[in-house]
């Protein structure tokens, strides 16, 4: 049986789009269009996650959230909002929202956030990352390339783990520094560059590359096999 998600959204088109897409992803989805009904459903039913709009009829999202948390429910809540004011975000998070998405949003982004929230709430241990034939096992701290274990130092592993967990996005040298030596003095000027160049050699053969982004840092991306 799939994971149960409650969508509370008063815009019928948006609610229908989200629920049918999430059903395709294998979730069991209920939809409600007003705050009072949502409050009732959240009291009686058990969901794995709630997607909650803020501007709702009869009882607004903040209040639904407040009442939910007052009942000491730990279920993750993803807030949808059209207001991207910082104050609202903070307010939402203080009330116990676990994450927020600003309308309009991409379906893929919504699904990724849902997956991350559910994984976090179920206490799933850090999983393995797999990109371009390279598998990074966070628990075992091993990297496999086509079944063969790569011989990486702890710092090289740290760099690769950071880059792979943010694949497709830029990771700055500062972020890598913080990951390798948290709170400590900065590593030597070119230390990061040295780790990255060694890593590049060691992962030769995988279908991914570590790009140097001028002035910003590094970006790991899958490269299509030629």
């Amino acid at each position: 049986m799939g994971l149960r998600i409650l969508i509370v959204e008063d815009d019928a088109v948006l609610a229908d789009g989200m629920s049918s897409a999430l059903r395709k992803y294998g979730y069991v989805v209920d939809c409600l269009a007003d705050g009072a009904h949502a409050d009732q459903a959240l009291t009686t039913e058990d969901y794995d996650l709630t997607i909650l709009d803020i501007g709702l009829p009869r009882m607004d999202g903040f209040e639904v959230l407040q009442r939910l948390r007052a009942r000491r429910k730990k279920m993750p809540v993803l807030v949808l909002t059209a207001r991207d004011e910082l104050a609202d975000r903070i307010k939402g998070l203080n009330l116990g929202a676990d994450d927020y998405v600003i309308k309009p949003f991409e379906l893929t982004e919504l699904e990724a956030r849902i997956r991350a929230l559910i994984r976090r709430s179920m206490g799933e241990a850090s999983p393995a990352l797999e990109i371009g034939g390279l598998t990074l096992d966070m628990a075992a701290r091993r990297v496999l390339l086509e079944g063969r274990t790569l011989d990486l130092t702890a710092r090289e592993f740290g760099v690769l783990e950071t880059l792979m967990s943010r694949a497709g996005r830029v990771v700055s040298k500062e972020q890598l520094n913080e990951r390798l030596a948290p709170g400590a003095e900065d590593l030597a000027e070119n230390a990061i560059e040295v780790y990255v160049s060694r890593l590049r050699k060691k992962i030769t053969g995988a279908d991914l590359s570590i790009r140097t982004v001028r002035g910003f840092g590094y970006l790991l991306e899958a490269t299509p096999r030629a």
Partner: protein
Amino acid sequence: MHNPASNASKRHTPSLRRQLLQRLLIPLVTLFCFGAAASYYIALGFANSAYDRALYDSARSLAQQIKVVNGRTVIDLPRAALEMFEWDDLDTTYYRINSESEGFVFGHKAMPDAPEAPRDASRAQYYDGNILQQQVRVVALHLPAGPNGAPVKVQVAETRNKRNQLVHEILLTLVLPQVMLIAMAGVLVWFGVTSGLMPLALLERAIATRTHRDLSPLPDRRVPAEVRPLTRAINDLMQRLGQTLSVQHRFIADAAHQLRTPIAGLKIQIERALLSTDMDEIRPALGQLRASAERVAHLSNQLLTLARAEPGASDQTRFTDIDLNAIARETGMQWVPRALERNIDLGFSASNEPARIRGDGLLLQELISNLIDNAVRYGRDGGSITVSVAARPEPQITIEDDGPGIPAEDRERVFERFYRLPDSPGGGSGLGLAIVREIAQAHGARVALDTPETGGGTRIRVSFKPA
């Protein structure tokens, strides 16, 4: 619900009329009181000196009638004369004669004595006293040697009716005009303020009766010189308001038009998809739908940002200390994947020292995003974009690309809302640089657009005031 602050301010709302009356009448009345008191004493002095003389004469003539008969001091006055002496139509007169050797000789025994011994016995002594619970004025004559050789004291007392009447008459003639003067001043202030404020009341009616759309200047004929600066300031405000409003109206019309275009696209594509049952025909429509929806989303985001960056909407109290390096790096990083899609080399160059300014972090991110967005959108495939920060001579951020550039004649117009270069590729809202300029203005920063030294492309530099 009562707001204590507004209550307090209501209580303290100054009334011009009350203020003027207070300022005029309080000193006037005070002065009047002092004046009246002074007048009273002066009038009393006059009355006393006028009637004291008569009293003295009476005492003198009485003294002349003192004789010694059979060794006793007596007064030789016929009864009728005495009565005449005692009575006039207003006052009662009392007298007493004392001889030092014989004591009380004649007259009214209960005559009050002088409060103090005479300084100069040869001169008459005047003082106030009471007889039969009536106030009296007394004159005492000291005769050093009476007819029998012993000193004699002659006292004549007179009730104060005449004197008081005189005092009242004098006071009345002095004070009454003053009272009338004060009353008139009050009335004049009261009506003077009303008529003086008449132009303001007319102005108020003129403003109150117009519609919110009527921003034509207020007539300032017949407005007094003191009020003219006010009407001029109001008219100035009206004019600026009018300009802002017409910009807003045009903006809303433009925005609606800009939104209608992609929405029209959405509708057409939806209808096209609904007409078809073949998935292969529906797919391209869906792709177009997504592109149109993205344009709507982008445009609405831009409109929102613009609204937030507008002067008055942005709030200086939200400003914090910001290092341009940090914010440029964080914002720029997010654009790298988009740049890579077009194979553009997006790079960053930080300043050696921190470039600190005071600003609104969210707005600055929007500013930088819009500049990079423009460079990526209109740059050339495989080109290069550099975001750089400098701390000197002033904190500045520069975004430089090697794209087709912006013709010199369009460099001012590209900052206008919804202005797009002719033949520019689609997808842009035409608001990006307008947003950049609004946010820069909210930070007191300057925006300059030129061509990089390398000769091609666009360079936009935003120069801030140091923190």
